[in-house]
């Protein structure tokens, strides 16, 4: 067994185990930490596939940004020692049946389909190539999604600030403002 196969088995075992723990853990902070393990293992898979830039983005944005945001909101909204009560057994069973049926169908389709790879030579993904493709308007350019995503990020930032900053006015406070 080659080294990369051992690494793949390790990463995929970590991803499967920790993603199941993420959705079944009774303590919410532990679920967030399991999610962090899943995201870090995914970035390991990206390193294996030789996409170093995206692996770094995954580590810094997902594992560094989103998980910290989730943990902050957990600390703001729930007690750390609080345990969830189990959602009903019937609901669990039906959800598991739905998930298993979908997974079985997808895996059967994947194993059935005959994938054919292109024969052209692989392109070396350098940082220079990524930058010039992002800002190019030619056939291989991605300047339009780049601009759209920048507008989206700006809108999301403004929306997050506006939504989180404005507390809901209590109905009893409104008459007092009018009287003054």
């Amino acid at each position, binding site marked *: 067994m080659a080294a990369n196969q051992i690494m*793949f088995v390790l990463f995929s075992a970590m991803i*499967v185990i920790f993603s199941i723990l993420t959705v079944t853990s009774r303590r919410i902070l532990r679920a*967030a930490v399991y999610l962090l393990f899943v995201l870090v293992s995914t970035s390991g898979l990206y390193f294996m596939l030789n996409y170093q830039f*995206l692996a770094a*983005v995954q580590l810094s944005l997902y594992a560094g940004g989103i998980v910290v945001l989730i943990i902050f909101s957990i600390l703001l909204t729930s007690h750390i020692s609080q345990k969830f009560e189990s959602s009903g057994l019937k609901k669990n069973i039906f959800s598991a049946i739905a998930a*298993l049926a979908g997974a079985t169908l997808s895996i059967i389709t994947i194993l059935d389909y005959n994938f054919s790879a292109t024969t052209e030579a692989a392109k070396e993904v350098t940082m220079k190539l990524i930058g010039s493709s992002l800002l190019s308007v030619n056939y291989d350019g991605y300047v339009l999604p780049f601009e759209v995503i920048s507008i989206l990020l700006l809108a999301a930032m403004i929306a*997050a600030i506006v939504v989180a900053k404005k507390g809901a006015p209590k109905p009893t406070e409104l008459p007092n403002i009018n009287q003054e």
Partner: protein
Amino acid sequence: MNSGIPLQYFLILATVMFFTGVYGFLTRRNLITILMSVELILNSVNINFMAFNRFLYPNKLEGMFFSLFIIAVAASEAAVAIAIIINIYRRFTTINVEDVNEMKF
């Protein structure tokens, strides 16, 4: 690099991760854990894009840029979702989806 690992293994791994996220989305009742399940789903789609790009079309970069944009969308979605969750917590002092059953009128 990726010799000896067929493309199907990556796809099966992503499928298992996706449907784990679906299971969590259906069973969880806390809003933050639902958000975490959605992150799992988005992440598994990213694995698919990267594997397709590397194994089937290594001369192009579409999969990589799509994953990059999905990560950006996921980040903005998480920011807005958490702002809404904190606002709901202020109003109802709970983030259990079954207790939050009325909208502002």
